[in-house]
């Protein structure tokens, strides 16, 4: 009886515009690129809304209407919500309609899609609380399950999240933590009493998210009936098929002409052809399936890259230096009383900025290049550090002003 659990990450960062050393002290509009570049957040959001969010939400709503058993879970980052409100309010409205069906669940996360869980537990708790409150205001829901930025997870983070009262947390079903175990069961994070751990079935998830349009793949073309049979194969071997992926898979990463929307439109009916299959949201999965065993994850994992670790964000000196500079500002920016500076600082905590600085070309170079709007990791680093310098000056001038 496998229950299929669809979870989609919806996220867009505020990309930092080209910002030279000569702009330090002159320009505070770090995220307001108006050019034709891929750093123009408005332009990018419009494009992704048209290619992905609006058509995919339309398909999802139709599926929910057609199949009463269908369920979906989303986490929508605060930076994506900001840009929906500012640039494409119709996308926010379409998500509201989905949530309004009562069969779509929203998850909690850090408001700014940050690495705060790794660097600052205090900031982590604040961002999570802020995001939960915002989901309440925008959608009238209170999330009970948490997923961290890019599924970053370890035993310590599970503890932080359980202490905040969440009943579940999502993580990557990484080979090196599962070993012989299956991602088709709920687990208990090591040393925890209440919280459940749901793990991504990365093989089946990546078949859709990454391999769907790959003509060199032996299983190409992937059809809904074929995928339905793969799900059926879990029958008798597990409880859950956790399909976790970027929402931008539909229409943005896998373009419409690949047939991804047809695939999605037919997938629920193919899965439901087997009488033992059904769909669950993440909290339904947690309520229905008790953890079968404790799972120890002492080393931090994520769903990024082949390594499934933190190396996408912190594997070179550029990334480490910028992260150090960012979190060194935390206390001062919070005590400055400058709400705008604090919000800018939080926008700079978004993990994507450090992803753009990644130089790990040898293993996942194509993926990093695809997602990188800068000409090079070095350009991303120089731009980011210039902004950090400007923000530092702003805080210092504010602090000096307050103290004077």
């Amino acid at each position, binding site marked *: 009886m496998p229950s299929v659990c669809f979870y989609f990450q919806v996220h867009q960062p505020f990309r930092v515009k080209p910002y030279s050393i000569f702009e330090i002290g002159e320009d505070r509009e770090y995220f307001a690129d108006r050019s034709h570049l891929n750093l123009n957040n408005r332009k990018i959001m419009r494009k992704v809304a048209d290619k992905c969010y609006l058509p995919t939400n339309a398909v999802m709503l139709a599926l929910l209407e057609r199949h009463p058993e269908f369920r979906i879970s989303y986490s929508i980052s605060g930076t994506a919500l900001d840009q929906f409100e500012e640039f494409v309010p119709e996308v926010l409205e379409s998500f509201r309609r989905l949530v309004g069906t009562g069969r779509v669940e929203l998850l909690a996360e850090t408001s700014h899609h940050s690495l705060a869980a790794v660097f600052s537990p205090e900031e982590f708790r604040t961002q999570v609380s802020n995001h939960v409150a915002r989901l309440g205001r925008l959608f009238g829901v209170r999330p009970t399950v948490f997923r961290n930025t890019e599924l970053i997870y370890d035993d310590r983070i599970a503890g932080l999240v359980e202490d905040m009262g969440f009943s579940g947390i999502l993580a990557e079903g990484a*080979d*090196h933590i*599962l*070993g*012989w*175990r*299956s*991602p*088709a*069961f709920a687990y208990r994070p090591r040393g925890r009493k209440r919280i459940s751990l749901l793990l991504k079935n990365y*093989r089946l998830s990546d078949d859709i998210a990454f391999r769907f349009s790959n003509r060199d793949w032996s299983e190409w073309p992937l059809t809904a009936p074929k995928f339905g049979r793969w799900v059926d*194969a879990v029958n*008798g*071997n*597990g409880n859950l098929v956790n399909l976790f992926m970027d929402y931008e898979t539909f229409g943005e990463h896998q373009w419409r002409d690949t047939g991804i929307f047809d695939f999605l439109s037919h997938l629920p009916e193919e899965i439901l052809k087997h009488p033992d299959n059904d769909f669950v949201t993440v909290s339904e999965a947690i309520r229905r399936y008790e953890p*079968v*065993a404790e799972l120890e994850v002492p080393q931090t994992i994520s769903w990024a890259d082949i390594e499934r670790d933190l190396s996408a964000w912190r594997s070179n000196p550029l990334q480490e230096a910028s992260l150090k500079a960012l979190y060194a500002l935390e206390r001062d920016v919070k005590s400055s009383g400058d709400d705008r500076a604090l919000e800018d600082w939080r926008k700079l905590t978004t993990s994507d900025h450090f992803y753009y600085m990644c130089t790990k070309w040898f293993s996942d170079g194509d993926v990093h290049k695809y997602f990188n709007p800068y000409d090079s990791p070095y350009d991303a680093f120089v731009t980011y550090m210039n902004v950090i310098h400007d923000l530092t000056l702003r805080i210092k001038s504010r602090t000096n002003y307050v103290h004077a």
Partner: protein
Amino acid sequence: MSTRKPTAEEAANFLKNVPEEWQAFWCNHGTVLRNYADLSAALADMTPEEFAHHVNGEKNDFAEWTAQVFGDKTLADKLRLLSTPEASQRMVARRIEELTLAARPVDAAPVEAAIAERAEAAQEAPAAIAQEVVSPLPAEKPSKKAVKKPSARAKKTVAAKKAVASPAPKTAAAKPAGKKESVWSKLLKR
């Protein structure tokens, strides 16, 4: 292979399916393994790449599975020393043989079958043949003492006959249900 021979009970447990569904081994290429026979078959078909997903410089999932789920530290320790699917498969196959022998209860069924066959052929009473099959000594009415404790020679002969009559492992459960257990069965059970 082992430093300590497993008891029949331990051996039987090692050869069973995993007790819980979640304890099955999930191979990276999709196969689900529930017992040592599955593991042996999977290793025989496994490519080096698939094997490397589970056995590399940092881990040996097969060893962890046999140790954590079955408690078979002996096999786990041996598997940890091996770095190819072929060698691991041979090791698992050897362990299965060893465990099968250790788990096999001394089963009177082959003996009884031999008795019945001889009796039919010789048109003799099964009781008379029984003594001959079990012991090549001249037939005589066994004393109470002898029934309680067969001689070492008699035991050896039973084992030899059994080996000929039953090359494949058999278990008590394979006997027809409701069949009355013979005196020999009772006596020869461990």
